[in-house]
């Protein structure tokens, strides 16, 4: 047993971290929040071939695993990047896992090259499905509790709506025709849950780093506030949550690639822990920043907003805790919680 990244996996993570640092820093994320929507990261990511990472080799991809893909997505979460890459990668995983042969031939090569990228939409309680950063996508993949549907963007219409998460643009989609994925969608959805968990882990990691840096530097009563246990123990709890989320995300990625029969439990553990960590750490980081953390200018609210949305996609924390209880011996719940939020 070796519960640790190998050199190649470390290199993947570092390369994407560096790419984000040079193309999409927090100031850029803030400009996105203020309405300047140009995703400088997506062209850089496709130019370096990252979109092809986990697409099977027969469709023009590199054929690496969900673990490797989750390392990329974690770094994009750390940067609060737009959803373009995440969407395209998630759509690739959904089609590769549960799509039919014709659907795979039709869409996976464009997903791998980034030339015909895909976006993921989520069914909502009422009204048309919502898509994050879906404009410009060639394919829309619509998730609902009943089925996964593929919609050719040419057959659809997207209308911008306001978004709680200011770092991603949201649209409502209406479409004439859809094409259902023929195979059981749950294994594919579980893989996307792992990717969401990885994104949330990155969000939590970065929010913790901001809080700790501020606690070291901000002085009150003649010493850094990080010297007071009311603050330092908050930081220690952040570390506990981030490390737990990291263990759960790594384990779930590895499980998807090597022991898929155990994925339902691993995916729910990862999603529940990472979603909780992202929200708790982001809001705790806001608290540590005091009044400055409540201002528009400070980036911490972007983390809070991102955590508030991503933590509820594909099942809330409560949904995944219930599913873990089910899988650990309590049997199924009477009512299945809805896909977006329980």
């Amino acid at each position, binding site marked *: *047993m070796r519960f640790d990244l190998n050199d190649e996996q470390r290199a993947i993570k570092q390369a994407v971290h560096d790419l984000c640092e040079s193309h999409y820093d927090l100031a850029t994320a803030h400009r996105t929040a203020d309405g300047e929507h140009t995703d400088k990261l997506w062209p850089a990511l496709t130019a370096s071939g990252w979109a092809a990472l986990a697409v099977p080799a027969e469709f023009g991809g590199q054929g690496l695993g969900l673990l490797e893909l989750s390392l990329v997505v974690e770094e994009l979460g750390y940067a609060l990047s737009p959803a373009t890459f995440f969407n395209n990668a998630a759509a690739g995983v959904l089609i590769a896992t549960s799509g039919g042969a014709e659907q795979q031939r039709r869409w996976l090569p464009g997903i791998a090259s980034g030339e015909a990228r895909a976006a993921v939409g989520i069914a909502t309680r009422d009204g048309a499905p919502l898509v994050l950063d879906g404009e410009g996508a060639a394919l829309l993949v619509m998730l609902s509790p009943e089925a996964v549907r593929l919609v050719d963007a040419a057959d659809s219409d997207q209308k911008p709506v306001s978004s709680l998460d200011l770092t991603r643009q949201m649209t409502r989609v209406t479409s004439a025709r859809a094409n259902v994925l023929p195979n059981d969608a749950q294994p594919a959805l579980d893989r996307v849950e792992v990717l969401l968990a990885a994104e949330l882990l990155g969000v939590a990691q970065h929010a913790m780093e901001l809080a700790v840096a501020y606690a070291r530097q901000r002085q009150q009563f003649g*010493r850094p506030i990080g010297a007071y246990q009311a603050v330092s123990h908050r930081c220690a709890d952040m570390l506990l949550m981030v490390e737990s989320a990291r263990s*759960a995300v790594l384990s779930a990625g590895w499980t998807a690639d090597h022991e898929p029969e155990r994925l339902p439990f691993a995916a729910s553990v990862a999603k529940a822990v990472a979603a909780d960590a992202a929200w708790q750490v982001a809001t705790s980081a806001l608290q540590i920043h005091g009044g400055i953390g409540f201002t528009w200018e400070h980036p911490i609210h972007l983390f809070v907003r991102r955590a508030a949305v991503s933590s509820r996609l594909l099942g809330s924390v409560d949904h995944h805790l219930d599913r873990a209880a089910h899988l650990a011996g309590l049997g199924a719940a009477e009512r299945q919680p809805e896909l977006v939020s329980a």
Partner: protein
Amino acid sequence: MDLTLSPAELTFRDEIRAWLRDHHPGTGPSGVEPQFEFRRAWQGTLHDAGYAGISWPREYGGRGATLMEQTIFNEEMVRARAPSPANVLGLLMGGPVVITQGTEEQKRRFLEPILSAEEIWCQGFSEPNSGSDLASVQTRAERVNGAWKITGQKVWTSFAHHAKWCMLLARTGNGERYHDLTYFICDMRQPGVSVRPLRQITGESEFNEVFFDGASVPDENRIGPVGEGWMVALTTLLFERPGLGAVSALGIKMELEELAELIRDRDLDRDPTIRRRFGKLVVDAETMRLNGYRGLSRLEGSGVPGPEGSVVKIQWASVNQALTELAVDVLGDDAFLGESVWTYRLLRARANSIEGGTSEIQRNILAERVLQLPRLR
């Protein structure tokens, strides 16, 4: 990354599993003393089979195995519900400190009787005025005719009434608090040592007060240089926990299986609140297990246990406490009678966030040593 056991580890696990199936001694007699002697005999059986010191070097009676194999062995013991060996502190701390910091003579003198449980060990660190602030201990050791004369009081000393040897931290100077402590191995069977049991909130007595009134320690029973006892003690404390995270998580998972059965028996398995609380425990126990394994991989890579063990210690205490609270809620008014194993566990779990370093001290360690936040002190 590879989360499966290697072929060698699998073979080892199957060997242990088969051996435990054939040699499991049952639960043993009730009563503290008969149970202790039962566990001493059980440790003797383990030692005869070569299983008492899995990760100890071969030349000192161990198996020279990896920490991973030690963890596999401990997990199989938990899974088989086998009793724990009697000489817990000797195996976890006394042996490792002698192996890593003792002289060749000390290794030959002390190690074998630890493995066989002929000589039980206890730990004399905490004092009435030195709990979390361990470096402030006041027990004194003075040189008298080439030996050391010990005066002072220790507290929370588990196994003191069974122990032959005590790992003793005592002050040998008046200077800087981290550099005038010395680490001794003190004979408990001598006139200058008296032991008084402390009764716990559960009604049992797992630990004691120990009074040293002119007890004598020959200089050859000193570990490490005079004045360097703090570093010796710190190293021992770090070696206490590697791999223990994964093993305690398995213990918690087995209790969760019991709890699931109790929830189903009481027809509460459709109650959304109970399900959510149970699910939270399941998830936390799983991340604790994974954190334990990840720490073990890190230790095997670097050779040094890191302060990350504090994460698992905090998790263990809070999960175990929440688990007993949920079980007692499920029991309802049956819990008022105080005869259930769960009501015992409810009370016993309160010690988890205190014993082995309080959860507050663990948070200090994470804040200062991992996050590099400034110290208040």
